[in-house]
Structure formats: C-alpha cells, structure tokens
C-alpha cells in the first residue's frame, strides 16, 4: 500500500483556469516521464528537485495538452516521497485524460486523504494534524462504502458480478484441473478456457468502451472536419451547426483559421472544428492555418474527412487520408449533386450534398454509430468513476495476459495466476477475497475429492 505510486487531480474540479495532477511515490518521476515530453527533450529523471519543465502530455501517441511538470525529490516534498505535479489547462476533460494516462502508465488512484496520510507516515506532519487526517480517511472510507452499497443493486455491480462469476469459474476450472488430477478428464472443461477468457475480455472491454463513450456524452466529442481545399468543409460545418458559422466561397483556401462550434447530434455533443484545407501553400497566413488544421486533427476524437465526388483524389488528399488511417474517422463524399462517385476508402463513408442538405441524416447516424452512441443504449452499463475504470482496466490487462499465456503455449498454472490477478483487481471494487471464492466454487460446481 505505502509502496505504490498514487495519483489524483488535486485542484478542485471545474472548468477554467489551470488544474494540477499530483503523482506521489517511489516511481512518480518514472511514471511522469512516460506521459510527459519536455520541450527541451530532457527527462524529468535527470532534473533536480524543485525545478520545472514545460512540455506536452503525450499518451498512446496522442498529444493531450501542453503542461508544466514540477519535480520534487524525496524527502523534500509534501508527502515526503518523490512527487511530480503536472499543471495543465483546467477543465475536467483534459485533466481526466491526463490522469487516465498517468494511471495507465503505472500509478493507482489515490484514496481520500492519501497524500496527507503519506505525509504523516513519512514524518512530515505532527500529531495534532494526524487526528484530522484520520477523520478524513475515515470519512472517505465511509463514502466509498456508501458508494459501493448504493451501486450494490445497480447495473454496474451486476455486470461486474457477472464478469467476476465467469472469472471465478475459469479460475475454479483451472484449479479443479490441477488440484484434482485423478478426476475423469471429461469433467474439467479445461478446453473451454480460451472461450471463457475471451468472453470475459469482451465484457471488460465493453465496460471500458461504455465508460469512455459515457464520458463522451457528458463532455463532448472533439470532431475535426478536414480535407483538401474547396471540397465543401465549411458548407458541411454550416449544415451541421445549422448556422452560417464559416464563410463559404468557391475560392480555395477561404478558411484560414480553425473555426469551432458546439453541435448537438442526438445525445452526443460534438465539439466541431472546421479547418483550413490542407495543401502546400506559399501564403504565410494560409500556412499557419494549415498548421493549425494539423493540430486540430491531432487532438480530435473523431475525424470527418471530406472529399469531392466530382474529381479523383489529388496527391494532397492521398497524403491526408493516409495520415488519418489510425484515427476514428468518417469519410464524406461531397458534391453528389454534381457527380456520382464510386470511391472505396475502406472506412465508413457517407455520400451527400452539403450544399443541398442531402444526406445529412445519414451523416448524423454515421457519427452517432462511430462514437459508440448507437451501442450505448439506455440499458448500457456505465462505471461511475475513474477508480472503477482503473480496476476494470487492470483486470482487462490480466485477462489479456492470461489469453496470451495460454495461446503461447505456457502451462495452465501460469494462466491461473493471471486469472487470479484479474479477479483481485475486480474484487477491489467489492472488497471480497479471491482465494476463498475460488475454493467455494470448486466445491459447488465440481464433484471432486476422494
């Protein structure tokens, strides 16, 4: 417990200003280095305590935000441990994404009052203060318990319980297979293990996907309209926002800056940006606009790639299209009022005429489907916070590792330990003990014993 590195958003929640994520523990600096790229190229590992670096938060090759990282080296910090404070632009969305990255990089979410508790345990605080800390922790524990109990009847705990039951059964199957080798081979069902595990994996992935797209409902999807010049991006922007937000002319390169608008499609809030058409240009102003387009594209959750039905792909367009391959994207073949196109792009494609408003519904449906909105129907199960997501994420990681262990030809004992770890993470949500559950399951489900 005291050995793990923890992280939390330590400024009050709310939009605006700046916010700070604090990472504390032995591996704080190492973890920060995994998500933070300083502008100077220096690793935080190599800088002194009490110094800061400006840079970017990058996770899964995506830039999340610009940030400042401030390094404290043990014991000279609030908690007495290594601490990195990452200050970025405020607003839940950005801060939570950064925290997510930090957690995925190896930290665990901090408990209520945990930074203060650590400060005390490391001799950074006196006795009177300690009493106050115990109250905070105790209240935090009560809250956590209440939260757990309030979701006890809820969909989340039912879903978790169902995944847990599957994994307990998988663990019991492995154990029954190994602990009762004298039993008839037919009884064990060990050959069904890959199936059981991939079914659990899918369920866990769905929980995470739902959580992530659930956040999308609350916080909005960043969508960028991109494409070559004069393919009708701005017309599309105006159509989607039902306003004359972007200036539309037939002159290529009219939009020179990124124009933003919030658009509601179904239940999804789209933070839409219209960008400058991408092309090699000598115009200084347009050049800056193109740079900004690229950045908007990088930051977007969803790309709407617009092409012209009336002409073949240009080299510029091919290049743009290649650059969005790894992103979540929808292609719009525009100007069907002028020409028909049989372009096959291999991604979800909508043919429409933005000018005449034909095909708008199809585009809106495609957007909703793509952000997982269609799947996220009213009965979708949503995890309620980052802590729960973290437990599910770790469980998923272990289940995946169990599947890999199995398929690469390792023996079942190694697979069993991965399943155990997955269960441990899931049970952090419910506070039960893994080993006794598995033993109980064996006796319940299998007829074993001498």
């Amino acid at each position: 417990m005291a050995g793990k590195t923890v992280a939390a958003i330590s400024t009050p929640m709310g939009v605006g200003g700046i916010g700070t994520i604090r990472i504390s523990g032995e591996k704080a600096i190492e973890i920060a280095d995994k998500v933070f790229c300083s502008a100077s190229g220096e690793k935080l590992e190599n800088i002194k305590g009490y110094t800061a670096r400006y840079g970017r938060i990058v996770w899964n090759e995506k830039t999340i935000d610009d940030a400042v990282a401030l390094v404290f080296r043990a014991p000279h910090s609030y908690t007495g441990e290594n601490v990195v404070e990452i200050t970025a632009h405020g607003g839940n969305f950005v801060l939570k994404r950064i925290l997510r990255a930090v957690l995925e990089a190896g930290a665990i979410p901090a408990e209520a009052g945990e930074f203060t508790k650590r400060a005390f345990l490391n001799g950074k605080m006196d006795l009177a203060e300690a009493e106050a800390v115990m109250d905070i922790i105790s209240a935090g524990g009560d809250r956590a318990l209440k939260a757990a109990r309030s979701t006890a009847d809820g969909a989340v705990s039912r879903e978790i319980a169902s995944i847990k039951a599957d994994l307990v059964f998988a663990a019991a199957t492995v154990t029954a297979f190994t602990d009762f080798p004298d039993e008839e081979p037919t009884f064990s069902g060990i050959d069904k293990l890959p199936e059981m595990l991939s079914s659990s994996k899918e369920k866990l992935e769905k929980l995470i996907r739902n959580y992530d797209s659930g956040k999308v409902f609350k916080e909005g999807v960043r969508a960028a309209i991109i494409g070559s010049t004069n393919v009708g991006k701005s017309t599309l922007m105006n159509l989607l926002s039902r306003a004359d937000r972007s200036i539309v002319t037939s002159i290529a390169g009219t939009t020179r800056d990124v124009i933003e608008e919030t658009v509601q499609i179904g239940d999804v809030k789209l933070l839409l940006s219209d960008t400058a058409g991408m092309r090699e240009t000598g115009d200084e102003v347009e050049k800056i606009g193109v740079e900004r387009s690229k950045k908007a594209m990088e930051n977007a959750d969803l790309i709407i790639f617009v092409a012209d039905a009336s002409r073949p792909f240009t080299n510029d367009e091919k290049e743009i299209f290649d650059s969005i391959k790894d992103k979540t994207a929808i292609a719009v073949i525009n100007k069907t009022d002028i020409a028909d196109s049989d372009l096959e792009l291999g991604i979800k494609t909508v043919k429409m005429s933005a000018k005449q408003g034909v095909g708008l519904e199809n585009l809106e449906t495609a957007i909703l489907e793509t952000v997982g909105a269609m799947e996220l129907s009213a009965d979708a199960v949503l995890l309620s916070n980052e802590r729960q997501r973290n437990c599910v994420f770790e469980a998923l990681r272990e289940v995946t590792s169990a599947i890999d262990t199995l398929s690469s030809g390792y023996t079942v004992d190694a697979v069993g330990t991965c399943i155990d770890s997955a269960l441990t993470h899931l049970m952090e949500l419910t506070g039960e003990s893994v080993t006794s559950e598995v033993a109980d399951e064996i006796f319940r489900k299998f007829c074993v014993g001498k």
Partner: protein
Amino acid sequence: MTVKRYKAAEYDVAVIGAGHAGIEAALAAARMGTKTVCFTINLDWVGNMPCNPSIGGTAKGHLVREIDALGGEMAIAADKNTLQTRMLNLGKGPAVHSLRAQIDRRAYSGYMKHVMELEENLEVRQAEVTEIEKCENGFKVITAFGASHFCKTVILATGTFLKGRIYVGEVNFESGPDGTLAATKLSSSLQKLGITLRRFKTGTPARVLRSSVDTSELELQPGDEKITPFSYSTDPKTIKNTHDCYISYTNDRTKEVILRNLSRSPLYAGDIEGVGPRYCPSIEDKIVRFADKPRHQLFIEPCGENTEEMYLQGMSSSLPEDVQIEFYKTIKGLENVKITRSAYAIEYDCIDPICLKPSLEFKCCEGLYGAGQFNGSSGYEEAAAQGLVAGVNAARKVKGIEPMILSRSGSYIGTLIDDLVTKGCMDPYRMMTSRSEYRLVLRQDNADERLMHLGRENGLISDEKWQAFLDRTAKKNAEIERLESRFIPPSEELCEMLISKGTAPATTGVRLADLVRRPQLSYKDLAPFDPERPDLSDDVQEKVEVEIKYKGYIDRQLATIAETKRLEGKKLPADINYDEIGGLRLEAVEKLKKVLPESIGQASRISGVSPADISVLLIWLEKNKNA
C-alpha cells in the same frame, strides 16, 4: 469413582496425541533439546493412516516437501515406506507438480514409533489424558490412571479421538478411528480452560480383500518410471514401485442402491451434527449433489506389503453395512468383493482456529498449543505441518525465543496457518494450490530454498543436509548464469529441432536462456546443442528450467510479495484496544477484536476490514511510535 492422583515426571513440552501432528510436534521439540513427552491412547497406532494409505498429492505434496525443508520427519518416513510413487500434474506446470506416494501404512506406523522411541529427549507413553489444568508457569497434565505431570507447555493434537463417535447407518457409538478408544473426558477439561469446542465429521470407505477384487478388466495405474522422493536427503535409487493401483467406476445400479437407501444414512436422517469436509464427500453425497453425473470414479489402492487389504478411494460412506455390501458389489471388479472393514463416518470435537495465534498458541491460554485436525484442518500432511510448527514454537517458548511465524509468501504451511487463524474454517480445511496467491513462487522444487534456513536455525537440519543444500543451490545459480550469458550459433540441426518442436528457427546466434524460455522447448531438448553443459542432478535441472522459463511470471509474484512484506513487517501490539481507535468502523473493530491480528498484513486479510480501516491503523501505529 475418583482416581487418586500421584505426582509423575516433569517436562518442558507435552504432546497429546501421536498422529501425524503429534509426531512432528514431539520430534521437533525433542530435537530442539527440550524434554518432551508424547501421550497416545494406543502405542500400536502411532502415525496411523485411518483413511487413505497415501501421502502427498496436490498442494499436500508441497506441504511434505516443506516439512522436510524445516527438518520434520514425514518426508523421510514416506520415502522409506513407499509402495508406489507418482508425480502428478506433469504437463500442467511447475507450480502444480505434486508428488504422491502409496504407503505401507503399518510399516509407516512402526517406523514412526521406532524413530520416536530412539529420540534422545523424547518419551512416548500410552495413556489417556483426561485433564489439563493451568498452574503456575505451566500445566498439570493428568492421565486416566491418576499420573499428574508438570509441563511447561502443552500441544493438543487429538485428531478425531476427542469425543469421537462412529456412525454406520443406524448404528453409532463412542470410538476413536480404526477401532481405538475415544478420548471422552478431556473435552470438558479444555472447556474449563476457556476453550470453545465444536463438532466436525469425516469419513472413510471400506477396505476389501485383494483376492476378492477382479482387477483383470480394470484400468491399471502404475507408478512413475522416474522416481522423485519427498525428502531432499533421500537417494531416488532407494525407492522402488512394487504395487499398482486400479481404477473403476460407479454405475446406474450403484446410484439406484444408494438412492433407495438414503433414508438410512445418519447424515440424511439428521443424526450427525458435525460439519463434514466439502472436498471429501461421501459417495451418497456425490450422487445426491451431482445427480446428472452418470458415474463416479474410484481408485483401488494397496494398504501394504504384508496385508491383502485394499482401500477404495472415492467411496466413503456412512450407510448401513448391508447397503454398503450391496452397492460396492454393483461396481465393476467388485462383483464378488469381500469387505474386511466397513466404511464409517466419525464425528469429533475440535476448535475454531481463529482462537489461535499464528504461532498456533492459544490466545486465551499462554503455553497451550493446538495442531492438526483438532484445529479444524483435515489431512495427514496438513496435520504434520501444523505439528511441526507447534512443536518448534513450544520449544522456542521454553527457551525464551520469539516464535517462528511462517509467511504466506514463503510457504504453503504459512498460508495454511494464516488461513486457519485469520479466517477460521467452517468445514475441515484442506490445502489446495488455489489457496496460495503466490503459487509460482511456492513450488515443490524450491521448498529447500524457501525454508531450509529456518530449519537450520532451529537446529533441525544436520550439517550434512545443509551442505548438500548449499551445493545444490550454488550449482543451480551457476547454471542459470551460464545459460543467460552463453549464445549458441545457428545451425541446420538446431533449426530442424526448433521447427520440429513447433517454434521459430534461429537465424542468428541465440542465447541459451532465451531458448529455454520458449514454452515449446525443454532444457533437455537443448542438450545436443550445448556441449559445455555440466552434469547436474534431475532436481537441479528442474529448478534451472523452471526459474528461467517462468521468470516473467515469478518476477511479477515476487514484486507483489515485496509489497505485502511491508505490511507484514508492521506489527500490531498484543494489548491494542481497538475500541479506542477513532476512525475505525464498528464492523472492523469487532472483527479485529476477535482475530487480534499480529501485523497490519494479517489485519488486511480479515473480511470486514476495509483499506480505509488499514490506513487508520497505520496512522495509529505511527502515532503511538512517536508518543
């Protein structure tokens, strides 16, 4: 009639019972130099195996290895009296490789009796202990004939003798196992010491005459060709497979006979109140609970060299004798079976082990220890493991040394005891590999590396054994280092072998260890390509292979262990008043008061104690350290 008491001898350690727990307890205490006595109701039944004539099996084999590493006797005794030996689970991974041996039960018993008789500081005495009284600096241990012994410490290892009662159908009577006398008086004396007793039950199948079993049509189960002993000090060449086992199955007729007579079972009639072991159900239980299973397997095992009796593993029952005869005869191979002893269930007094410390000393009674089935466990190996720990700790108490507490992360024995004293048990506790969260680290091959230093510290490991251990470990480490640093060149032969094993061919020089790490390859497969390989014994080769192949998984468990050690190291004082610690939840206070954990680590495993409660305890500890 009151028996006239007389003053008999004085001892440092008294052990009540000479079953598998009692033997290890008495031998350990005596070998550690304390004056020890071991009482048994019948000296001819020392180390008896009233149920299966075998030692080891999954997780249990690990326990036997660990007992050997700590300087116990069970492994050596089993090796010396083996009829057949098998390493189970080969192919399922090193964490679950488990050794099991069929044992000549009467020879084993005779061997153990003799070892005890020869032990310098140990007296073995046939007597029924009827009372234990607390007195200044120790206890008075009183026998049925009035002998009163002053003993500084006492270990209770009463097995199924304590108020034992045997059930066969409608018949039931006071008895110990295998026709011995029950210990009927001691229970009330223990209750006077403040100990709460409860009832557990267990059962055993019939024994049958070999000549009445037709084995010609049955599946044969022979021993392993390659023999692995339990003890690190046994030469494998001294063990021979001399007997076979056989497999048969129940059928529809067996089921029909049992279901028709179910009302005559004392369990279904409600005569037995004791809780039975879930993992060891009677055949009637299996047929009722798993009604859709068409058949149940049974093993027919030899009981010894000088007997024609055979044991029917998987067929325990408490049905009436006439029903037993009828259903056993429905089974293939047993059509003309002659029963020599009937199956029975036995009910006995035991404790909820939550009242014990991790040293196995009673929380309510200093100097008094419990071990084996008396503690709510089941199995010879589980009993012996606890006996050894109780014996060591009683001797350490007498010598004024801190108790030996085995950790969960260091051994199955530690896991077994921690489970018992932290969680208690609702039915007889059996060891299983799934009980350990560290099973890739707690393997049967490395019990010596995990525990032998503790055995050595207690004076239970001889110079010779210790030196052999040091040599073995040095060889293993050197070989691992060599494999990690040596590359072999690619060659046609190598690629051919790799492809034939279903793994990728090597195009450049390749590290030997990286090849061993491939799941498809074994250490032995690589011998032809590794001319510099030293000549190593089988057990060292096994260790080398496992440590390299499973390094990734082992390292992950070692990291978790390092985490938990921090919490295990934070000791909670014995006189802690949980009511006075603000911030603890009520449920947690109640649980903590009941278990009285010795460390934060133990506290964290109590159900009902939350992480927030643990934080509060950590802060309380820190605060009191400063105060």
